[in-house]
């Protein structure tokens, strides 16, 4: 699956939960939201290998 976060992109293999995908790319689960096709996912959602996932930083603005 493809995971994007700000200006970074990762390709990761295998099926896993949203939380595991966040950990896999080295981010702290608490600091991002996981979005697929514009829909917010819960951390136990099982992702497919073909999914395109966007991670949204929860710290933003000023």
């Amino acid at each position, binding site marked *: 699956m493809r995971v994007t976060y700000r200006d970074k992109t990762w390709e990761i293999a295998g099926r896993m939960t949203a939380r595991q995908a966040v950990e896999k790319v080295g981010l*702290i*689960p*608490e*600091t*991002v*939201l996981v*979005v697929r096709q514009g829909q*917010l996912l*819960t*951390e*136990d959602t099982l992702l497919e290998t073909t999914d395109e996932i966007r991670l*949204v*930083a*929860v*710290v*933003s*603005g*000023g």
Partner: protein
Amino acid sequence: MRHHKLALCAPHYLEWFLAQTERTITRYHMFEPEERILVAVSGGKDSLALWDVLLRLGYPADGLYINLGIDGEGEYSHRSLEKIEAFMATRPEARLHVVDVAATYGATIPQVARRKLRGRGKPCAVCGLVKRHEMNRIAQEHGYAVLATGHNLDDEVAVLLSNVLHWQVGYLARQAPVLEEREGLGRKVKPLCRFYERETAAYALIRGLDYIYDECPFAEGNLTNFYKELLSRLETESPGAKMQFYLSFLQARKDGLFGQAAQEVTLHPCPTCGQPTSVPGPCAFCRLW
């Protein structure tokens, strides 16, 4: 939401968020339904979420945007205002006050920070001072009963950790969901103080609020974000840690742990602007220009 042991679908999440905000407003006696509220809006997710929630709950809430002049390449202030204008376009009842710092006082925040010791290195201290002054000024001039800011739980615990690490008991004594009105200073409230930052971000996302996603260019590498990251690591290992830290602190404060420090300092009106200052003579804000 691991700390609540709760997973909700989008419509129920929005309902839950509204109900929780209302509960916090009532729990801390923040304001009454008929009181006029001024919401400090930056264009970020927290302040837009707060304004959206208050309007949906039926409170008379107007916005205040302070244009700090943080532009340059990223046009941060300019884009922030665009987000607020987009928010208002679908809410005809929303009314906004805009203060342009450069137009009003002759210099942007980065400009004034560069020539002051307080702002040397980073303009954040100057920025905070200007925002506090202007928020209070507009609230007082327009007769608002209360000023509401979008501080969330992560903001609160980051400040709390910083104050504990430095044992700033004076600051600890004054950190609360409600700061009561006193001579020349209006009441300030933080209705989102019991929401995790990811909860306000989730609310903004589900509601489709178009907020400014980039951080302020001066926020990069600041200590607050470092403390937030530390606390998020703790939260990941121990769900509920942030909430427990905050609520235990509020209880300790209520029990008088910071009693002596809580004794309020005497305030004097600034001879130039009339706003209260702890030292007789011109206030820190007036000495900036």
